[in-house]
């Protein structure tokens, strides 16, 4: 097979190339109304290519690795991989992006800058596909940066900040010195600044891998040898640097704030951001890396730093999971509630993947399949949320049973998506979550009960917030001030297609036991403990459905709604610290720094050299000849002396 490069080229370039016409015709209203269809078609081509790869390309090494020359002389090549993880994730990413794009045709109609939106939306998709299929870490990093740039463009899409509906938080609501309200322009800036903070150490980690391993292909690097070479401290520093990139992108504690304020972007962006790109990218890369590091196989090699790193990731994931779920329980903004729940889910993915250190390969499959189920469910919920915002012209949870009856399709989709996601037996996520319960049970021996307790707590609260979302939007919410329930055909089509995949996964892969899905999911689901947890989740879901708000706990809810005051770290403590440092520099260090770089030493040096260079240029040939002859003579004399000495 030697045509595979055409497939890859179409996969990555079709979304980008198809969005260039709309980007170039940004001044023409007529063209910007028509060309979104071309952009969507570009993503559809990616869907076809990802499916073709899924069905036709090899899955096992080394046949599933495709290498093309890229940066000559460095050993850095374009290396793509179609292994188990990439082939599934590629299809998930492309399909979800396509469904959202179809929805976006309706949702973004009449927007004030469609060219900007479609170009970055398609770039976002292409970048994630690059991350998914890259085996080479440097190529992966290119896709990674593409995600960052596109997320900035999309989150800050409504950069004029002229519509309150795009804000996050209640305008003018202050807590202490801080106003807990964020406009879109701020959301975009915050996303890119947080992500850049993580990308820099990640880049250095990749450079260090290149130096020490001499190879950047994830599936080829001798990870065990690398860790032994760089030792205990080296392993910890290297992996932590890499992980900061993943944690910031996946909005894990304490880098989660950008994700909440990212809800200032269009809902389609939120849907893509939370399901198959961006936040999922961090967890996916960790799963992929661990897949090839195989830490459970390295137990016989003395690499003590590795276990500490995996313990760290496990607890960051579990704490993020609980933090996200608790924060979501107090939230009343549709999209921000879903954002908090995403953070929670991603935390669980990290935790499950990290547990592979003790449990082995199965833990990675649990993390990955939870990611897949979560992606379709969460994307469905976001798309419903966007439709509700259109219909009610409110970003806050509202809508009673009457409203629910008039919005039957989103109502039903929300029921399916939430129940299939939280882990109610025997629905889709139940099987995966049972696997997760089993994984955490395995950790009782090395790490005690805490991981399992944190997981169960998170799952219960998570079920509650999903039920709250359903209840306050369609059953027990306040009557919306504005109702516009007509239309939205393409929007409905988008989330109907999305949610139907959850049913597909349940029936055709889990219940009919397709061999690609590990049979351990079924056996884990059959365990009494898993069933017990599932019933507890169902109970929490039902209670929250019946009683979505508890007035006695309103103060605690507000505390959770304010993300336990974590925004103070981002918006108050960090800026204040920065200003303090800059004042120190201004008052004490600036004279020296400024004098050296800006006013005295460097400018003086430049001026003197420049003057010297210009002074020579008198325009007289005789002067030039004298200079040149003199210099040649001097050089020859030096060479003669040096030559004798050599």
């Amino acid at each position, binding site marked *: 097979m030697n045509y595979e490069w055409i497939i890859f080229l179409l996969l990555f370039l079709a979304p980008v190339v198809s969005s260039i016409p709309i980007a170039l015709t940004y001044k023409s209203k007529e063209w910007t109304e028509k060309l979104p269809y071309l952009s969507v078609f570009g993503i559809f081509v990616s869907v076809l290519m990802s499916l073709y790869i899924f069905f036709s390309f090899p899955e096992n090494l080394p046949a599933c690795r495709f290498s093309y020359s890229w940066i*000559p*002389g460095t050993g850095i090549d374009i290396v793509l991989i179609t292994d188990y993880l990439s082939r599934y994730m590629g299809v998930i990413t492309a399909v979800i992006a396509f469904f959202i794009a179809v929805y976006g045709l309706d949702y973004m109609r009449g927007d004030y800058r469609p060219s900007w939106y479609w170009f970055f939306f398609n770039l976002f998709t292409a970048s994630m596909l690059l991350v998914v299929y890259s085996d080479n870490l440097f190529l992966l990093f290119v896709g990674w940066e593409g995600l960052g740039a596109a997320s900035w463009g999309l989150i800050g899409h409504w950069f004029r900040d002229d519509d309150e509906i795009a804000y996050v938080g209640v305008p003018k609501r202050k807590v202490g010195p801080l106003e807990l309200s964020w406009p879109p322009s701020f959301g975009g800036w915050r996303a890119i600044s947080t992500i850049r903070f993580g990308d820099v150490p990640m880049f250095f980690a990749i450079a260090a891998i290149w130096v020490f391993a001499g190879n950047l292909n994830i599936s080829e690097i001798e990870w065990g040898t690398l860790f032994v070479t760089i030792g205990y401290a080296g392993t910890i520093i290297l992996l932590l640097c890499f992980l900061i990139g993943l944690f910031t992108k996946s909005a894990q504690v304490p880098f989660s704030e950008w994700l909440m304020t990212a809800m200032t972007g269009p809902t389609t962006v939120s849907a893509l951001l939370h399901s198959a790109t961006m936040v999922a990218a961090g967890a996916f890369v960790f799963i992929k890396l661990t897949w090839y590091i195989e830490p459970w196989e390295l137990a016989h090699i003395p690499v003590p730093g590795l276990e500490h790193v995996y313990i760290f990731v496990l607890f960051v994931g579990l704490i993020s999971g609980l933090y996200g779920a608790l924060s979501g329980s107090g939230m009343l903004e549709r999209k921000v509630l879903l954002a908090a729940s995403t953070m929670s889910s991603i935390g669980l993915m990290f935790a499950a993947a990290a547990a592979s250190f003790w449990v082995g390969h199965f833990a990675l499959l649990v993390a990955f399949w939870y990611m897949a189920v979560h992606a379709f469910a969460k994307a469905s919920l976001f798309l419903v949320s966007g439709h509700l915002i259109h219909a009610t012209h409110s970003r806050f949870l509202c809508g009673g049973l009457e409203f629910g009856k008039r919005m039957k399709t989103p109502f039903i989709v929300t029921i399916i998506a939430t129940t299939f996601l939280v882990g109610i037996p025997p629905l889709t996520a139940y099987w995966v979550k049972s696997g997760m319960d089993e994984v955490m049970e395995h950790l009782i021996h090395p790490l005690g009960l805490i991981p399992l307790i944190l997981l169960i707590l998170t799952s219960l609260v998570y079920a509650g917030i999903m039920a709250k979302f359903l209840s306050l939007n369609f059953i027990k919410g306040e009557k919306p001030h504005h109702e516009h329930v007509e239309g939205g055909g393409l929007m409905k089509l988008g989330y109907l297609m999305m949610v139907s995949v959850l049913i597909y996964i349940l029936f055709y892969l889990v219940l009919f036991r397709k061999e690609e899905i590990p049979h351990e999911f079924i056996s884990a689901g059959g365990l009494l403990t898993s069933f017990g947890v599932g019933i507890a989740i169902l109970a929490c879901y039902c209670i929250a459905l019946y009683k979505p708000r508890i007035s006695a706990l309103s103060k605690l809810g507000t505390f959770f709604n304010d993300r336990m005051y974590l925004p103070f770290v981002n918006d108050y403590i960090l800026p204040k610290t920065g200003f303090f440092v800059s004042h120190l520099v201004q008052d004490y260090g600036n004279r020296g720094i400024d004098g050296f770089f800006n006013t005295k030493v460097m400018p003086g040096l*430049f001026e003197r050299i420049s003057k010297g*260079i210009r002074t020579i*240029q008198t325009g007289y040939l005789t002067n*030039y*000849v004298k200079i040149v002859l003199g210099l040649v003579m001097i*050089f020859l004399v030096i060479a003669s002396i040096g*030559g004798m000495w050599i």
Partner: protein
Amino acid sequence: MELAMAMMLGALAILTLGSIFSFKYRQFGFYAAIVALVIGLAACPGRSLYYGVFIFAIGIINLVSLNAIKSEIKGVDYGLVGLMALATMYIINTSDLAMVLAALVLVSVPTYILVMIREGGANVEVGIKYITFMVFATVLFLIGAIILAYTKSLPDAGLLYVLGYVMLVLGLSLEVGVAPLHEWVPDVFTSADPIPISIIASLAKIVPFIAALWILIYTANSLTASITIFTAVLAAISMFTGNIGALTSKEHARVLAYSTVANMGYVLTCIVVVPVVVVIEQGLVVIKPEFIYLALAGGLLLLFANAAGKIGFFNAIKGEGAYSPLMYMLAFSFIGVPPLMGFWGKLFILLSLVEVGYIWLVALLVINSAISIPYYVRLASELGIGWKANLTNFICLAVVVITLITVVPPDWFLRGMEVLAQTISIVI
């Protein structure tokens, strides 16, 4: 006589006839030069085909650009540029010292006449200034080359080798304008007509480097590694002098003159790399080709990028501006923004320097690339205007296409240079 040589001689004959007939019909010279270049390209062997194609393209663009000036020797000037391009195509394929030096002279001498071309007369003052230094440079270069060739037959070359090396490098520096022997460059670049200068700053810079590189490789011995520090210091001085000079100059042609000084400093670093890989194994001199191909590829790509940029900018000066995006593309290539050609040239040179341990020179090259950003951007912004369908924009578009070729990563070029480097070691 081998076929390639016969084709080259045929091409030279066509050039000569074209130049003669151009006294009657001027366009004869132009068409004859194009035919000669096509034959020259056909004579290029597979290993240097990409190199030949680049020289062919640069030669054609130089020929076309001559149409922007009403020269008194119109017709012959085409022949002179054709001759330079043919010699440039030929030099990479020869390992004969006499032919290498002949190619150097064939490229150098036509520029003595070209530099004097101006509309309605001859620029004699510039010509004298230029020729004085070129003659001096050629003499130094030739003596240095001959001394180096002579040392090959000596069991212990010692001082003579060092003197030969220094003379060759000084000759090269004077020829292409490496600081501190660059004094003629700003004056000639600002006083002469921009079109002939675009040829001198592009096509004429390639052969001296290849000639020097070839001679140094063929004559390398155990002393070479010790003496390369001289070239490294010279390269560093040239980078700083060129960039600071350009940064603090206002006249466009003068900025480009200093930019040439800086670029020649970058390319000179290739000379630093190549001889370092000469090692003695069991009493025999062995050329290790691992890094030669990197340095060669880097140096040539940088020379091509320099040629493309200089042609574009000088033509823009002549045409009082060119299409703004094209100007910016050329500026970005000069700065070294990926994936333009200037980036790859610098990258390969940096990689080869890293391999041979000249890390301080790598740092200086990177710092100098950063220093150059403001003046290239300023140049692009001042010379950039709206689109007009004229000769200037056509030429600028053509050179931008050349710099964009490396959007496809130049592994293909590198592989060609690798093959070439292996043939060098075989010859030795």
